[in-house]
């Protein structure tokens, strides 16, 4: 079986500072998205369960100048090889363009039995890529899986939906998106980090997958992207736990949200 895991690398969210409501992205390193590590781990666990399975990571560079280094973490986790779509036109692309590029890359790789996405990216969390790629490749898709099994050429997934857990089944090939509850991503061992550098990594431009800049041109205009103005009191209450609690209760009574 072949499993393709499209992953996104994003600026380290803990390192982004805000100045005059603007995010400061200079010198912020990229890392593999937290949620993407869950999708990689899910693929690796299926590989272990099913046997004779190849796990292929796929990513779009999106402005990450050190994408090959960043992707080594996915290889160190255990993915067998990596493909990187690297093209300036893709840096500005929105979900439609990126989904098209991923779909074309998946076709060029030779397709897959299963394509495992995170339910959303860790930075933007739009959740569009899995369903869009499924539609482009005319594949069944199951979203939000928290448990996955593959047996007898079928995919079975469990997901939470309202007050219920749904058990869903699909034929293969299929697309699935996973939530963070599906697993605890492994931390690569030192030996696997050493081995990762030797695993095959292929870099493609848009032209290599049969697309040009116009095909992935952005279809949305970002009018602004600023930190929200907080309309909060931001009062820090200090002292011992007892003093803090007494002061808090007084303040809440004054605000009229607690009875005196």
């Amino acid at each position, binding site marked *: 079986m072949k499993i393709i895991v499209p992953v996104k690398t994003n600026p380290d969210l803990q390192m982004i500072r*805000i100045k005059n409501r603007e995010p400061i992205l200079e010198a912020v390193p990229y890392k593999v998205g937290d949620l993407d590590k869950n999708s990689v781990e899910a693929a690796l666990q299926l590989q272990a369960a099913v046997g004779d399975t190849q796990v292929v990571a796929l990513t779009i560079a999106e402005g990450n100048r050190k994408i090959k280094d960043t992707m080594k973490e996915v290889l160190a986790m255990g993915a067998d090889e990596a493909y990187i779509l690297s093209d300036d036109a893709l840096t500005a692309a929105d979900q439609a363009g990126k989904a098209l590029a991923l779909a074309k890359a998946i076709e060029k790789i030779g397709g897959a039995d299963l394509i495992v996405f995170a339910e959303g990216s860790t930075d933007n969390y739009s959740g569009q890529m899995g369903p869009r790629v499924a539609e482009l490749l005319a594949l069944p898709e199951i979203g939000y899986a928290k448990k996955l099994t593959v047996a007898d050429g079928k995919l079975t997934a469990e997901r939470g939906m309202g007050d219920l857990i749904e058990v869903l089944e699909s034929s293969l090939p299929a697309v699935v998106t996973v939530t963070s509850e599906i697993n605890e991503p492994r931390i690569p061992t030192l030996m696997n980090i050493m081995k990762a550098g030797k695993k095959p990594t292929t870099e493609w431009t848009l032209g290599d997958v049969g697309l040009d800049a116009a095909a992935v041109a952005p279809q*949305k205009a970002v009018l602004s992207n600023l930190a929200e103005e907080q309309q909060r*009191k931001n009062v820090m209450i200090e002292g011992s736990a007892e003093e803090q609690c007494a002061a808090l209760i007084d303040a809440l009574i004054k605000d009229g949200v607690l009875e005196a």
Partner: protein
Amino acid sequence: MADILVYSDLLTNAKELAYAGKGFAAALGMGISAAALGPNADADAAELGAYGADRVFVGKDPALEGLQTDVVAEALAQIAKEAGAEYVIIGSTRRGKELAGRLAQKLGAAAVTDAGSVVVEGSDLVASHFSYGGATVAKEKVNTPIKVFAVMPKTFEVGDVVAGAGTVVTPSLSLTPSAVKLVETKPKEGAAVNLDAADRLVCIGRGLAKKEDLPMVESLCAALGAEMGCTKSLCDWEWLSENRLVGLSGTKAKPTLYLSCGISGQVQHTVGIGTSKIIVAINKDDKAPIFAFADYGLVGDIYAVVPALTEALKKK
């Protein structure tokens, strides 16, 4: 005349979209349609008309039972074309968010998901959503001929209803059964809880070291007369059921008093608390982002502050 088409798998949410959509349609000189799909479509249609939809497209094709994403996306794509929709506004519920990408792809549309606001600017609707993990809010305008917005439930208020309004339209749908089969549904553990209606809400996060410590927080809830909510981690660990989840893919709470215990303040949670009247945060890390969202911040260990607060409230 171009149209705005609204849909949600949750009727309460669909009513919000119909009501808000009527306002947008009036401002943009468009019509407002709603889609009601699945076995309850007839009953839902009457409500959606009352809440503002001029036309309600009713889809009862057997393939829609179970509301699988691929079939709903196909049905909505066909209805959007029949209605002449320029905007398709759906609820960013769990199903709705999954639907948005597939529907947008079918319509050749760009989409904004998890929108926390949609406003009229000039002759366009623009939508805002969290970006960079919640550090910022991106305001986006969609430039494709058909535009898809998935809007967080409870973003819009509803107002007066007009019973009996809305024309029912039966669209000519051509659907095939879903490629995904629902094998079974199982109940989730945990009693039913409705955080939407909670006037006071105490939320806990990763600061709680173990499940066995939940009674400490339950005591605070009892003393305060509050419901208990949580962040995603606690649902993931199955310490609490998903119907206690506040934030993305959970409840967008609107309590008078919201109190967080051991919550760092990641966007996935804070997106659900912004409309609280008063926000209190307790966290031992004085740099935790949650304090920027708070009216009152208490730096301290929840294992000291929560019992102290419970006692102080009991003595009050």
